[in-house]
């Protein structure tokens, strides 16, 4: 779960990492406790908001009011801005970059730091990014921190301050089960202090049960995706007009690929997972109907999930509620024969192989 910048900063403060004096602003009154000049920042869970006009510097109240009303409600790459953070301008002497993320290959937390902060880290040359891996069993050690600080060309006092920040940031990363904590820029102020001007904190969804203090943020999901999540069904909305129901993430992806091969366009991705409950299948089909695809393609490989169990759920939806688009099925594996028997009078179109069914679906959706 990606936290908004201001909530990420609340966590930074909890871990004794300084952030500018600031608050969420909605009306004129909210500015009374802040000292101009200020920076107004749209709170959206994606990058690139500066370029989209979501960050503005304001010198006085009049300026602030005008820009606030522009930013509130602004659409930034599909996200409507509902919250704006106002922060006092910081005295920037130096901009650094600092992040801790997950290195999937080494299976370790990876610290990345650079003296070239303030810009997109993707555009910083590799040799200017310093990397250090932490053994998850022993956690961050002083030698890890020394390695990073020695590369950043900081003076003695700054190094000491930076070391504290890094040590605390690792604590935050571990204690809040983060996938990513990123501060860009992390600044050295005129007075030598270190301060986080931005924050990206991304918490592992699977660990949310350990963090009841973090209120969930739902902005990343569409309403149908949210509905599916509550029902324990994996449901992803894409752009096209063919609804794909399959069991297993890999098989679902392979099905979408096959549709594309036959110039079809996958619109919704629904993964039944391993289920032996016809009721769940019924719910999945109902969700799919709400997404209004032109064609539904059911691709099933029965293993632990029995084909006839899924067939029963499908049959119930079709006979009781009806379905107003063509359904193409391709059923293979455990109890395949029984499943085909159950569905034989349901008016579905059958494909023998994945290719055959994908082609039929694509043709019908055109």
């Amino acid at each position, binding site marked *: 779960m990606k936290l908004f910048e201001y909530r990420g900063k609340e966590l930074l403060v909890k871990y004794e990492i300084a952030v500018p004096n600031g608050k969420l602003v909605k009306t004129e009154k909210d500015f009374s406790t802040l000292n101009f000049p200020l920076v107004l920042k749209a709170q959206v869970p994606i990058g690139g908001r500066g370029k989209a006009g979501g960050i503005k510097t304001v010198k006085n109240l009049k300026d602030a009011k005008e820009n606030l009303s522009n930013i509130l409600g602004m659409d930034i790459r599909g996200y409507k801005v509902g919250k704006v953070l106002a922060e006092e301008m910081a005295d920037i002497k130096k901009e650094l970059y600092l992040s801790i993320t997950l290195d999937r290959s080494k299976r370790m937390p990876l610290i990345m730091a650079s003296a070239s902060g303030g810009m997109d880290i993707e555009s910083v040359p590799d040799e200017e990014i310093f990397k250090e891996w932490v053994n998850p069993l022993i956690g961050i050690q002083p030698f890890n921190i020394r390695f990073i600080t020695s590369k950043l060309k900081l003076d003695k006092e700054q190094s000491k301050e930076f070391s504290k920040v890094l040590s605390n940031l690792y604590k935050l990363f571990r204690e809040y089960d983060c996938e990513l904590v990123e501060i860009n820029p992390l600044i050295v102020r005129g007075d030598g202090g270190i301060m986080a001007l931005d924050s990206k904190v991304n918490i592992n969804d699977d660990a949310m049960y350990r963090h009841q203090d973090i209120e969930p943020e739902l902005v990343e999901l569409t309403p149908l995706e949210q509905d599916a999540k509550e029902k324990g069904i994996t449901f992803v909305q894409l752009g096209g007009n063919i609804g794909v129901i399959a069991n297993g993430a890999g098989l679902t992806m392979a099905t979408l690929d096959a549709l594309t091969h036959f110039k079809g366009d996958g619109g919704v991705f629904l993964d039944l997972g391993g289920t032996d409950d016809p009721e769940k299948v019924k719910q999945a089909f109902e969700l799919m109907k709400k997404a209004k695809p032109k064609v539904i393609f059911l691709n099933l490989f029965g293993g632990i999930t029995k084909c006839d169990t899924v067939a029963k759920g499908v049959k119930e939806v079709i006979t009781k509620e009806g379905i107003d688009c063509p359904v193409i099925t391709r059923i293979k594996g455990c109890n395949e024969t029984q499943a085909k028997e159950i569905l034989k009078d349901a008016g579905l179109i059958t494909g023998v*192989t994945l290719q055959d069914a994908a082609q039929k679906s694509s043709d019908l959706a055109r």
Partner: protein
Amino acid sequence: MAVFADKNNKVLVQGATGHQGVFHISEMLDFGTNVVAGVTPGKAGQEVHGVPIFNTVQEGVDATGANTSLVLVPARFAKDAVFEALNAGIKTLVVITENIPFHDAMEFVHYGKYQDAIIIGPNCPGIASPGKAKIGILPGQIFKEGSVGVASRSGTLTYEIVNSLTEKGIGQSTCIGLGGDPIIGTTFIDALNAFEKDKETKSVVLVGEIGGTAEEEAAEYIKENISKPVFAFIAGRTAPSGKRMGHAGAIIARGKGTADSKIKAFEKAGVKLAKFPTDIADLIEK
């Protein structure tokens, strides 16, 4: 021969008395797996399909000589279960559980290395060596004894591919479900290394998907170290960036982890790629 799972595995099941445990103990016994013990705290003295249940892994190991554990416990207890098994001297672990926080997985994967144990998973269907043993939840009926080694990040897609091999009369030495999570204990490289050494395995099938760089690393490894023919299928060629495609690990992040990059890397390493999952069987036949 086979890799990771054969007649020498004496299997203990953690989470043995739940719905899943009871069902899969029966399935594994049918496959010929030597299931010797089950563990569920507080349930010692019971039996599941004739398999004795113990309160702790240590008790199960002491009484039966179990050397392998199948972990079926819920996600929030999984780290503890894996640590318990490793401390009791278990050397092969198959972790089926999904939705384990990845910080937990990082810790037990590293502790496993420290204890010289093999950990397969988490979020995987397990491992099957036809004619020898199955440790996991893969459907037993799709396999056939033979010489193709399969390693995969996906469950159902593996079953689909294995089934199409079996239908064409092409048998398998061992099929390993590596798991769909970003942090897994056994990688493509570990599997390739084991298959290269295994006399029974004549060719290898890799089933990859978007997310991470495990396929690219495997491709590099194949160039230098693997003499047997390798075939591959990659799922997610048409997946959009930034969306998690069902598996926690299947996400294209910041332009990294695309199917294209994986396909190119494999092609460079001389790996033959299939367009559709069932084409793998045709490629091997040729």
